[in-house]
């Protein structure tokens, strides 16, 4: 390798890492700033020049924020809604994907096409009439209202059907010969063989339920039924200029998901990639 070539390679390497590091800083900056602001004193928040880290971390900001609004209640509500929705999604998704991938029934192709077609409908359009339905059912201000409309997802069904299709048909036929029922085959063979895909769907759904904002806001009135994201917005209005408390409250909403992400990112990335590359 010539010296000129070497120099070019070094410059390219520096440039490459330089851009990547700059971009990475830009990406994590809001998170770092959120955490750092949540630990500052009001004086430090408005100090010029701003400091990256507080002199003494003000951990009591979290205590103050936690006590200033019923965040414990919001937390429990969010957890209930997230877990129930996700369990519902898993049950309906596994059952439907199994039907589409292994069972033979009249109109299968049409029904599958119909499921796929619903992916084109923007959820934003459905919210108005779904809100009307919830009113007519007298479900306003209940967990059901936040959970039931979301326990089935055409997208996850499509995703899992593709995974189920990859399981060799011969296994199913062998099980049939052994007089294994369809349901037993699904539970004993299909589900364990695709547990990673099912796990990915579960985590993706946990994230989207946890972050859901508009629907829970619409269908709840009372403070007791509010979820975290709604509670945070309400708290932002109430806390006014106490930025450190607002940042602490934002951390409470964001951190659980970031922790899940850091531990289970393999499944999340796998799920999003598979879903994304469906073509």
């Amino acid at each position, binding site marked *: 390798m010539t010296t000129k070539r070497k120099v070019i390679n070094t410059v390219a390497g520096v440039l490459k890492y330089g851009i990547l590091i700059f971009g*990475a800083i830009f990406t994590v900056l809001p998170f770092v700033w959120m955490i750092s602001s949540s630990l500052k004193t009001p004086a430090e928040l408005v100090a010029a020049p701003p400091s990256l880290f507080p002199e003494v971390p003000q951990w009591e900001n979290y205590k103050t924020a936690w006590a200033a609004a019923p965040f414990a209640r919001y937390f429990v509500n969010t957890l209930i809604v997230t877990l129930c929705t996700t369990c519902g999604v898993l049950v309906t998704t596994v059952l439907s994907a199994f039907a589409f991938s292994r069972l033979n029934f009249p109109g299968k192709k049409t029904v599958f096409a119909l499921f796929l077609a619903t992916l084109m409908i923007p959820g934003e359009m459905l919210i108005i009439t779904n809100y009307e339905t919830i009113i007519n059912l007298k479900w306003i201000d209940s967990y059901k209202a936040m959970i039931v409309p979301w326990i089935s997802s055409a997208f996850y069904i499509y995703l899992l059907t593709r995974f189920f299709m990859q399981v060799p048909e011969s296994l199913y036929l062998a099980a049939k010969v052994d007089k294994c029922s369809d349901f037993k085959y699904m539970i004993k063979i299909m589900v364990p063989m695709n547990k990673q895909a099912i796990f990915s769907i579960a985590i993706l759904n946990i994230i989207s339920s946890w972050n859901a904002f508009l629907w829970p806001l619409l269908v709840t009135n009372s403070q007791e039924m509010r979820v975290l994201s709604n509670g945070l917005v309400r708290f932002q209005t109430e806390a006014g200029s106490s930025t450190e408390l607002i*940042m602490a409250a934002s951390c409470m909403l964001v951190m659980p998901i970031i922790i899940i992400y850091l531990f289970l990112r393999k499944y999340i990335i796998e799920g999003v990639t598979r879903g994304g590359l469906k073509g």
Partner: protein
Amino acid sequence: MEKKSFKGYIYLLPSIIIMICFTLYPLVRAIVMSFLGDYSIINGSYKSIGFDNYKDLFKDPDFFKSLRNTSIYVICVVPASICLSLLIAVLINNCKKFKAFFQTVYFLPYVTSVIAIGIVWRWMFNSNYGLINYALGLFGIEPIQWLNRPEYAMPALIIFAIWKSMAFNILIFLAGLQTIPEDIYRAARIDSTPRFRVFTRITVPSLAPMIVYSSVIGMIGAFKVYNEVFSLFQGKAGPANSAITIVYYIYDKFYNSYKYGVAAAGSVVLFLIILAMTQIQLRVTGEKKKN
């Protein structure tokens, strides 16, 4: 395969019930509602049947503003996000060390709540104490009234949205890059092809399906932007409605002005836009499969 039986429907029943109640019925109902003048959700009463809601919609300057803003948003966010994501993805893919680290970092915005992180961006955009104006000040730029002046509302929203949308694109491009055979690059190295030529002649064409896919998904998502606006402007649509978007307009008509028919008409317009986008996507991916 065994003979056909209706047993499959027992497995599908839960999904079908939910789909009919919360997707198909509301779709039809929203279209019907868009033709009912002065419709009331509370008692189901209406005054007229016809195109009144659509007339109201297309007479409303706010609706045109929302269409214009949403178009500006789509035109700015999607290409910028795709280009930056492509650059980052290629660089990450070229890394020998820290590949997993960078991938983890760059994907972070995808999993976080738009509402919470929007509140943080709001704080960073603060004109007096915000980090962004401080950083600009280091380059001698006067403080910008990001969130208080109509002309800066859209730029602030767009910066936030690019930050948020890159994560997904980077992930898709990285997955695509891994499918390009290493041999092609090795051949290019032997021929000592310049890096930029490798990028334009090998990388970009190989990634074309992913780029198209990301663009369409990005466009569909961008046409539906709402949470970003809500969190950045604390529930409003920017100063003097300067950052009002289609979905924001629809929800505002529905939730704050109780004009259900007009909101439904707006959502039908949105539906048609999304449908057109999806048709483009299907057309393009169909062609990909043919090739």
